[in-house]
């Protein structure tokens, strides 16, 4: 054993002594925790040493462990060699700033940084530790997640800890999570009476995570002839049934929300087309490319924010808010140019407009390829849009909730524009009879341009939202163009309210059919349903007499 190893062992022992004494006096000590974390990084490759340090950490309870775990996980821990000492400095990177892990002071990094990585096993241990510490986290959500994970481990060692903390929980949701965890633990390690009580309680709680564990219990006692096995078997079956029934309800509510959210995506992509095709009668095949313009605008703004402020900075969080109006304006501008340069010559020739805009669509796709490359580009979500909101077993991601809310906002704003402003009056007049409106003094040329620009702008907004949930690439528009036309036709060409209703309807039907038939057959069935529907109602949900149909 060489000198440095001896010294390290000695330091370790010292650290342990410090750690132990502190955990007796105060619960958390930052300096001790930091020293142990540094030890873990230094001991990279030496499992036994790391294990020792981990045990020491368990005695501590500082929230810095959670921060460290996140940084270790995402490759933000670095080692810096120091000439004067054997043990290198350990740096933690947060956004663009580095701090010395041992002291917490901020450091200016130099070039000789070597990233340090956690092995999968160590990371799992760390995660478990963080979860355990989260049991006393001030953040209630974290506390619930921690209890949930500990319960699932079914490790009887956690039982005393969970039980001791249960009484202190004032929040009903947290207390429920603790009870659930205790019962799930007892399913494995409890006595028969404890198990029976746990099974009954879990059934009454309708605990979804418990289902798998209950099934294990049911199997275990399937053939057992011991006294009490029968009662346990029956109540387990009953509990599973109760949970199943509840799961079905949750499934339906979830499907309802997912239908709403898919409907909102369809609505956003199709609403612009409902205006340009439905109202103005232009078969705009380049509509999908306006969606792509919106997506690429978000990408550019994201890159600008990353380069100027850095990922994770507070300013970066706002990039998506800024990119919404930009995406709208960029697509609207492109729409206005297209209208001025081409479409205004084609108002009386809808079939030519189809071919011409199809050509524009291909030109735009090629331009995207030349500018941004053939590969899709990656757009990441800001912190406040990632994650999900859980409610009684139904989870809805924030980006989807935001999207649904925004879709409704678009419907309302468009309705107000069309029905409550003089511009809207002009639009409706021009759409009904262009010549007549023009002869009555409506500037029909400008109205046409602005209406087309507004429709295109909505497509740009749709692209901005799609960047958060899907692909941004040169051919992204192609994915949505068919859906858009489908929505407009089913809703009734020329009727904005119809388009809104049909997009929500198609979204719902799609999500209802998917779990039953699978995604492929589900999609096919939706299309067949639409074909049948149009057989009986060729004009769509709300057939209207628009100029384009009269011609």
């Amino acid at each position, binding site marked *: 054993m060489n000198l440095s190893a001896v010294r390290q062992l000695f330091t370790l022992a010292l650290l342990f002594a410090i750690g132990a004494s502190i955990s007796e006096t105060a619960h958390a000590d930052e300096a001790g925790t930091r020293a142990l974390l540094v030890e873990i990084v230094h001991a990279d490759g030496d499992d036994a040493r790391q294990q020792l340090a981990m045990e020491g950490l368990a005695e501590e309870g500082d929230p810095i462990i959670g921060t460290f775990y996140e940084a270790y996980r995402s490759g933000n821990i670095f080692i810096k060699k120091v000439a004067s000492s054997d043990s290198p400095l350990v740096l933690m990177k947060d956004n663009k700033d580095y701090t010395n892990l041992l002291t917490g002071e901020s450091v200016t990094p130099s070039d000789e940084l070597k990233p340090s990585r956690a092995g999968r096993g160590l990371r799992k241990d760390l995660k478990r530790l963080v979860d355990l510490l989260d049991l006393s986290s001030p953040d209630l959500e974290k506390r619930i997640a921690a209890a949930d994970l500990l319960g699932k481990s079914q490790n009887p060692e956690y039982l005393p800890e969970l039980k001791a903390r249960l009484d202190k929980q004032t929040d009903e949701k947290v207390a429920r999570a603790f009870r659930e965890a205790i019962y799930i633990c007892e399913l494995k390690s409890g006595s028969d009476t404890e198990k029976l009580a746990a099974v009954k309680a879990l059934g009454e709680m309708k605990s979804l995570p418990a289902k798998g564990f209950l099934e294990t219990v049911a199997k275990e006692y399937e053939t057992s002839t011991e006294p009490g096995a029968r009662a346990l078997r029956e109540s387990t079956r009953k509990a599973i049934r109760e949970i199943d029934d509840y799961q079905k309800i949750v499934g339906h509510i979830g499907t309802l929300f997912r239908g709403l959210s898919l409907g909102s995506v369809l609505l956003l992509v199709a609403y612009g087309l409902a205006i340009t095709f439905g109202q103005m009668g232009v078969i705009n095949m380049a509509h999908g490319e306006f969606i792509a313009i919106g997506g690429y605008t978000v990408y550019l703004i994201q890159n600008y924010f990353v380069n100027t402020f850095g990922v994770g900075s507070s300013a970066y969080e706002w990039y998506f808010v800024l990119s919404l109006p930009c995406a709208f304006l960029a697509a609207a501008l492109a729409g206005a140019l297209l209208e001025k340069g081409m479409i205004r010559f084609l108002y009386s020739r809808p079939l030519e407009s189809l071919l011409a805009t199809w050509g524009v669509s291909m030109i735009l796709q090629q331009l995207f390829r030349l500018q941004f490359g053939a590969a899709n580009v990656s757009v990441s*979500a800001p912190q406040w849009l990632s994650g999900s909101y859980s409610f009684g077993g139904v989870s809805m991601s924030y980006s989807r909730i935001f999207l649904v809310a925004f879709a409704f906002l678009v419907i309302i704003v468009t309705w107000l524009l069309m029905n409550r402003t003089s511009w809207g009056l002009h639009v409706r007049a021009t759409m009904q009879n262009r010549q007549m409106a023009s002869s009555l003094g409506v500037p029909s040329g400008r109205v046409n341009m602005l209406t087309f620009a507004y429709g295109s702008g909505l497509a740009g907004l749709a692209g901005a939202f799609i960047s958060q949930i899907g692909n941004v690439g040169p051919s992204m528009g192609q994915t949505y163009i068919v859906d858009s036309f489908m929505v407009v036709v089913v809703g009734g060409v020329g009727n904005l309210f119809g388009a809104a209703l049909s997009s929500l309807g198609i979204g719902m039907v799609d999500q209802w059919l998917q779990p039953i038939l699978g995604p492929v057959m589900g999609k096919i069935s939706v299309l067949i349903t639409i074909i049948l529907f149009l057989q009986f109602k060729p004009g769509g949900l709300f057939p209207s007499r628009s100029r384009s149909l009269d011609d």
Partner: protein
Amino acid sequence: MNYHSDIKAKLKGSLTGLLALASLAVSTVQAEETVKVGVLHSLSGTMAISETSLRDVLLFTFDEINAAGGVMGKMIEPVVVDGASDWPLFAEKAEQLVAQDKTVVTFGCWTSVSRKSVLPVYEKYKNLLFYPVQYEGEEMSPNIFYTAEAVNQQAIPAVDYLLEEGYKKFYLIGTDYVYPQTTNLVLFEYLQSKGIPVESIGGGLRKDDDGNVISAGNYTPFGHSDFQQIVAEIKTFAASGDACVINTINGDANVPFFKEFAASGMTSDDCPVVSFSISEDEFRSLPAEDLIGHLGCWTYFMSIDSPENKKFIADFQAWLAATDVTGVVKEDRVTCSPMVLSYNGVYLWKAAVEKAGTFDPEAVMAALKEGVSFDGPAGTVTSQENHHLTKNVYIGETLETGQFSILESFENVEGEPFLKGTFK
């Protein structure tokens, strides 16, 4: 005037004739010194994004071999044709290569459907095709050599690793076509043979009238964009812990899948996803922060720390910087498994030609079947009797940089195409 121009025209004519003769002479000389080799990939259409990289690496390999003296003293003359992501066109182009250009070997194809459509051409002309991309197996044409990963060189080691890590529930998801369907069916049998009960294999089953399972897992169309329902199902499936996802989704549908997965609050520490169709090359368009810690399994990773691999990457980058081939993207290029398997394929072909002493495709195939080896960037590869390769398999986890950090490696795994029904 007329007279003069007439002379001029005659002179011009004879001059062109002479030139043509001269060039003919030159070309016959060239023909003796070169050997024609076909490159058949999609350089346009949906698959271009992946397949163009293979064209690039093949051209690089030919240049490397030519610079070192060629194959049996002859320079490789590549004939590059574009399959255009159009499967019948692949067959036409293959016929053009073999019958018209008289190529002695072809390196090409990415999708299984393109391979299936050119297969009859190679069998008819008794020519030779090297196929470099992971595939579903259940095929062994006498005229195709598969440098690709067979299912037991990718999916099965990955599942072994997950079993070892203590995962007990497996959710299967993929794009609806032959590779995911076959792979998942093999995995379904394999998992059961390892004692995983049917109810712990998620994604759904489809049975025929006799009750035999004909499809396992959940399938989406190409380019699927709405994964809400599937992710909700995975979340329920994983609710009781120890679950993982086996992902054979192909192409850009991975982006909405991983975004939805991350938004649902699941991380790679709760429920890891192991993907078989995402290599370093695909990461350029994936949201890397949503993929941290998820797993990949290939027979090559760019992060392999060996002198051979470092040299390969450096030489390829140098070639990229120097090349004047049109359409080669020079920035931000990475190397990935299909590229290295193409590279290995060319060198194996060279070794087999030298062993057989002839370019005749059938003799070369016979030499390959006897076994030739090449020390590639990912270690030594050896050709087998059954037209597949023995090679190392690596399991890696995704880093935020879009590279893999290698967790485990399996040495010298033999390729076995016929797996269905072998696990009982």
